[in-house]
């Protein structure tokens, strides 16, 4: 494979597809109410500089922030049948899909990409809560299977960022069937002895939590993310009592043994590299905001080997 097909096209894509927002716009932190400069919010990965509240970040922005130089290549996801149940509620499912696509400029609720973090080649899958609540339908299942297959093929770790309100009801039982299907994807990684790191972001609930999001080798959550199977409202209705605000939040889950780490978004990238490289038996990473792999790199693997060699030489 030559680097032109691998890197140039996505570079251009990622540069031009970012929606331009004027710098003078303000964003109000939903948690503390502080007015924040849009540019500052963006530079801060959508974390409030005043109270550290982690606001939503789009899947594409997440990938750009994650990979060296913001460069990544999307991994193709097999397109499932559209509207398999011919589902009708108050709206038709295809109409809901169209509206979501228009709102997000994405085709579905998950992006899969390959690229490098600190010259460490990985596969990343990012669930997009802004697309129909990140709901898990056949596409998301196919995306996770495609991500796992690509990771196995390229012998890379898979880092998965979860965010979902749960199953996609409009795909009924087929949505539920993504629980075993994605579990099989995780088994593929385990059998190939490749790290599977889950980053649970706000919110991760329902069938998503009860399948691939809770089967990681390492579970990292962003601060104060809601992570649960049954949501707090349903539980309050069942037991007839009010739940404390910290219930089912990241810090509560780590106290109850369900997570390995709760990590600030700004530290995630570093932490992911550290963990992946140790599990992969690689030398320590070169830190810093590395530029995209350059033209002389034939492939990600070479780049990683080179990075390792440079690192060794520096010691």
């Amino acid at each position: 494979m030559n680097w032109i097909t691998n890197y140039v096209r996505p570079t251009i894509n990622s540069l031009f597809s970012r929606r331009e927002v004027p710098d003078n716009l303000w964003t109000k932190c939903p948690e503390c109410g502080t007015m924040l400069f849009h540019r500052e919010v963006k530079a801060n990965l959508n974390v409030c500089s005043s109270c550290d509240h982690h606001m939503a970040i789009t899947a594409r922005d997440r990938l750009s922030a994650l990979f060296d130089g913001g460069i990544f290549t999307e991994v193709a996801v097999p397109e499932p049948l559209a509207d398999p149940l011919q589902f009708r509620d108050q709206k038709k499912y295809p109409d809901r899909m169209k509206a979501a696509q228009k709102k997000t400029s994405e085709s579905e609720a998950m992006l899969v990409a390959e690229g490098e973090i600190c010259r460490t080649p990985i596969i990343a899958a990012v669930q997009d809560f802004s697309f129909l609540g990140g709901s898990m339908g056949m596409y998301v299942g196919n995306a996770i299977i495609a991500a796992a297959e690509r990771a196995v093929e390229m012998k890379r770790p898979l880092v998965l960022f979860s965010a979902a309100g749960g199953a996609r009801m409009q795909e009924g039982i087929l949505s539920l069937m993504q629980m075993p299907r994605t579990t099989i994807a995780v088994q593929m990684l385990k059998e190939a002895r490749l790290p599977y790191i889950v980053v649970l972001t706000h919110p991760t609930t329902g069938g998503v939590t009860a399948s691939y999001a809770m089967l990681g080798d390492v579970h990292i959550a962003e601060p104060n993310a809601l992570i649960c199977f049954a949501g707090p409202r349903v539980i309050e209705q069942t037991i007839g009592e009010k739940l404390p605000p910290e219930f089912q939040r990241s810090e509560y889950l780590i106290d109850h043994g369900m997570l390995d780490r709760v990590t600030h978004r700004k530290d995630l990238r570093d932490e992911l590299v550290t963990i992946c490289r140790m599990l992969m038996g690689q030398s320590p990473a070169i830190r810093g905001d590395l530029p995209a792999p350059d033209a002389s790199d034939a492939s990600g693997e070479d780049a990683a080997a080179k990075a390792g060699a440079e690192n060794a030489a520096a010691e």
Partner: protein
Amino acid sequence: MINYLDFEKPLAEIEGKAEELRALARANEEMDVEKEAVALDKKAADLLVSLYRDLTPWRKCQVARHPQRPHCRDYIAALFNEYTPLAGDRNFADDHAVMGGLARLGDRPVVVIGHEKGHDTKSRIERNFGMARPEGYRKAVRLMDLADRFGLPVVALIDTTGAYPGKGAEERGQSEAIARSTEKCLQLKVPMISIVIGEGGSGGAVAFAAGNRVAMLEHSVYSVISPEGCASILWKDATKMREAAEALRLTAQDLHKLGVIDHIIEEPQGGAQRDKEATMASVGAAIEAMLDDLSKKSPQELLKDRRQKFLDIGAKGLAA
């Protein structure tokens, strides 16, 4: 005495009349009502057939939840010998919403697991209405692991509204427990058969339903969410459960068309609750047939085929 469902009211009237007539005749020897009673019986039988011929999805839900429908406990008692219940998750507790243990189907030793809803107020409370907590899934994982190591097939009987939405259940890692149970099903090198006998509710059902063969009783349902829950979210009105049940395609017939399940097990006329013995016989025969079929496969084939089966789900729509 059978409990009638809402839509069975006309049937209740006819059967009630026939019963009254016969009671009168018993009290009054001169009366001969047999002819009329037999006519009413015939009318009732015809009505039963027509009511059950094309049950709407919502009516199927009602039948699937019928309090007199045979439950896991009944199947275990009727179909298996030497049932030896095994308890506990070795971690926290024994969850009575999930029962299971060693048993023989004919001479064949198996591990059987299932949700048990209970049959009266006391047992329903004890069984938490068949809604498992994390310990239930963890017990099931333990039993499946036992089956795997000793080469015994697993038979899972599914009948749950869903996982229990309680505080403790969440605290103790309900999500992880369900995920591990599904994972265990998919790791087994022994045959696994999953049968939805009543309600297959969401993640709580999937945890036991990733088998080599998945079958459903004719009037059981299997869904990602209850029709009431779906209606309150998508229609913003919980009373639209009929529409939601329709849209969700939760009947055995639709799921068979979609390729999600492998077999439909026929129920007696008027549903499993009307003739438990006949229901037991057809479920027993179905389990035997599926196990015979799977017993020809090697451990590797069982594992590989099961995975492929789930990876292939979704490829065909309803039209196919």
